[in-house]
């Protein structure tokens, strides 16, 4: 029966639209976004004064750590095809709770854990509403985003709580072997996230739920549990980011993290993760965060006005997503064919 085995490589493309000989999608998936980063770094070192000094690079790393940790957690959520808009507000609530407890005398490690725990708890609510009541995550987290921001204002009565001798401020402003601690924390978070997504059964289930939830259920994946868990992970990461943020500004700010959810989503999408779910890499998210950080810092070094920075950032995000969108389509300019209209 050997002649019944159809050669896939020749048979498969015929029935589909066909693929160009140079597989742009695969190439872009692997190295595309990295190329953008390298090009950006080269450009910045050429035109921005002092850009590639070690202290500046460490500075960039520290400045992106909050967004990157947020984006790492959000990658799990987006991989399942969900979204979490409440992570910015979670930053405020967890920071406030950690600071209040620290001032009340809780030891630093416990205050940090409490902040993370509060974030995870918020995620649990998001996840339970999404997974078990089958509500749309966009709406659920839009609601909790508003609620949690309100909660942060309520706890602090709208005023920042400043504590100059905050016991866990090291996690925001400290150094270990010359490296800022937030950068070390960020590295650990990404290592764990990478391990979970790439090496464990759980990771494959996350991709499966995002790829096709119905098929995942019929393949034996407990879709509800996986959905619940990604929001808990997203919330815990936001909680950690909130603690770091509070430590860095040595205070509890009810306005902390406002709009951060959008920067985090931008980093995830920039890194190649599909908002439709099922497709993406945690490494991409890290690169996406770094690109956004390099861009901001570089533009500041170049003395580009803040308003112009926003214009440039917006264009970069759209450009990156546009290239990403081309992957899923055959490339008309390579095939010389017009697209269906």
């Amino acid at each position, binding site marked *: 029966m050997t002649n019944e085995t159809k050669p896939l490589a020749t048979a498969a*493309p015929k029935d589909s639209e066909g693929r160009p000989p140079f597989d742009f999608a695969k190439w872009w998936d692997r190295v595309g976004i990295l190329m953008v980063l390298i090009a950006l770094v080269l450009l910045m070192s050429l035109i921005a004064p002092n850009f590639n000094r070690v202290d500046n690079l460490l500075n960039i790393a520290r400045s992106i750590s909050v967004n990157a940790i947020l984006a790492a957690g959000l990658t799990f959520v987006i991989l399942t095809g969900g979204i979490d808009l409440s992570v910015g507000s979670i930053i405020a609530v967890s920071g406030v709770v950690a600071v209040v407890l620290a001032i009340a005398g809780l030891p630093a490690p416990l205050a940090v854990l409490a902040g993370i725990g509060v974030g995870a708890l918020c995620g649990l609510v998001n996840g339970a509403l999404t997974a078990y009541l089958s509500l749309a995550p966009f709406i659920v987290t839009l609601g909790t985003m508003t609620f949690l921001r309100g909660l942060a204002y309520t706890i602090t009565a709208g005023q920042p709580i400043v504590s100059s001798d905050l016991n866990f401020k090291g996690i925001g402003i400290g150094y270990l072997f010359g490296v800022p601690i937030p950068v070390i924390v960020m590295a650990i978070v990404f290592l764990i996230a990478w391990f979970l997504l790439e*090496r464990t059964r759980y990771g494959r289930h996350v991709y499966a739920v995002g790829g096709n939830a119905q098929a995942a*259920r019929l393949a034996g994946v407990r879709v509800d549990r996986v959905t619940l868990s990604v929001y808990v992970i997203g919330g815990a990461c936001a909680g950690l980011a909130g603690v770091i943020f509070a430590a860095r500004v040595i205070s509890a700010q009810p306005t902390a993290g406002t709009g951060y959810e959008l920067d985090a989503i931008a980093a995830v999408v920039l890194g190649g993760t599909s908002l439709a779910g099922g497709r993406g890499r945690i490494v991409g998210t890290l690169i996406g965060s770094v690109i956004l950080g390099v861009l901001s810092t570089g533009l500041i070094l170049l003395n580009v006005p803040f308003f112009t920075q926003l214009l440039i950032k917006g264009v970069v995000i759209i450009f990156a997503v546009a290239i990403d969108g081309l992957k899923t389509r055959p490339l008309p300019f390579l095939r010389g064919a017009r697209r269906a209209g």
Partner: protein
Amino acid sequence: MTDEPLLRLEDVTKRFGVTLALDHVRFDLKAGEVHALMGENGAGKSTLMKILSGNIQRDGGRIVMDGRPIDIRSPLDARAHGIAIIHQELNAIPAMTVAENLSLGREPRTRFGTLDRRRVLRDAREKLARIGSDIDPAQPLGSLSVGMQQMVEIARAVSEDARVLVLDEPTAALSRAEALQLYALIGQMRSNGVGLIYISHRMEEVWQLADRVTVLRDGAYVGTGAMGELSPEDVVRMMVGRAMGDLYDHAPREAGDVVLAVEGLSGDGIGPVDLEVRSGEVVCMAGLIGSGRTEVARLIFGADRRSGGTVAIDGTPSRPADPHAAIADGIGMVPEDRKDQGLFLDHSVEINVAISSLDRFSTAGVVRRAEARKTVLEEMGRLHLRKNAIDLAVKALSGGNQQKAALARWLMRDSRVLILDEPTRGVDIGAKREIYELIDALARAGKAVLVISSDLPEAIGISDRLLVMREGRIVHELSSDRATEEEVMAYATGTAGRAAGTSHGAEA
């Protein structure tokens, strides 16, 4: 009918990168004829039709209509030339009404420039009347059955005075009554001088409907012949390049102990259903679409909530609350809708095959990747899937190979009970044969196999016993070696006792 064909494709060639998808393909169509286009998946039928519909451009060759060469650069061009295509997947908007869909893109306006709702409805009623349909145009399209939606598409094509109508697997999702209605409509269009290109894998249907058949293989033209001059065996030989023998041939099997025992199973509109499948046995559930076969399978598998009854595997009660539990108890199911329910299309074959066995291939939640990959490769080998396909996205595979990937998942899991819902739908004949052989081999290895099939010769040919379902219950059980299609149809339609007399009852 004149001798000058309505449409002629000459030496049409299409290249995708290094692959020659169409190699000097010929095809001609006369007014008032049904011309079947056949070939295995990947033979180039879809590519040829995409060129005809203007979705892709040919690299070489000519398209001649009414003796004049034409160019089809876009779907709009195709429409302007009177070429309409009814796709397998319908291109309509389910949330809009039938009437709105029919006027889509050319909505009538009132004097004030607003949408003329009354005329939309009136036009739609006229268009539907032209094909003899009494569908209510005010209904949302999505509330209609697939067959009815197809009728709406055809009504649209007819209303635009299509002269060439391409039907791509039109009966794949139709009930028997709907299919009959479609056949009548095809006859009507033929007598009106429309040329119809009919793509189907179903031999009997093609013989019943078509005047001529053209066969493609691996992107090349194989031949054209009048139906009267060819036998189904001839066409199969042309499609696969050699004789197939009897598709369903298998040596007698010996049934062992009861593996799957279902008692009083009931759910929404289903049951109570009792059934047993023994080790080494292939049992087929036959019946019309909507008779409850898929629902029974889903209840056994825990995919839907059951309201009563028991399921036991090897004498041990299984109380599957969800598929996860059913799989742990040794049940595997390949669902009817491969693309929506069975597979992760964007993910690799490896991921798709391994997903249900990861618990066996991981330590403390960490996947033993090398070992899992090796096992996936072994299962792919058993199914004649090329090993270097392991990292391809499943959507890049042909229908037959996708189905093999779906089957490989349960081979890897080594499930005791296999439920296969329409395992050969949309699968070419070569892969069909391989799937039949696999089913036979699984039964011989002591598995209990429960198959759902709407292809009656297949259902009888590959099984040991048949369970005929109607209105959510099993109404008849018979041994496959004595079963006839007529008898099965008689029970499936509830006319048992008098001869049903259907020679093509397969597609119900």
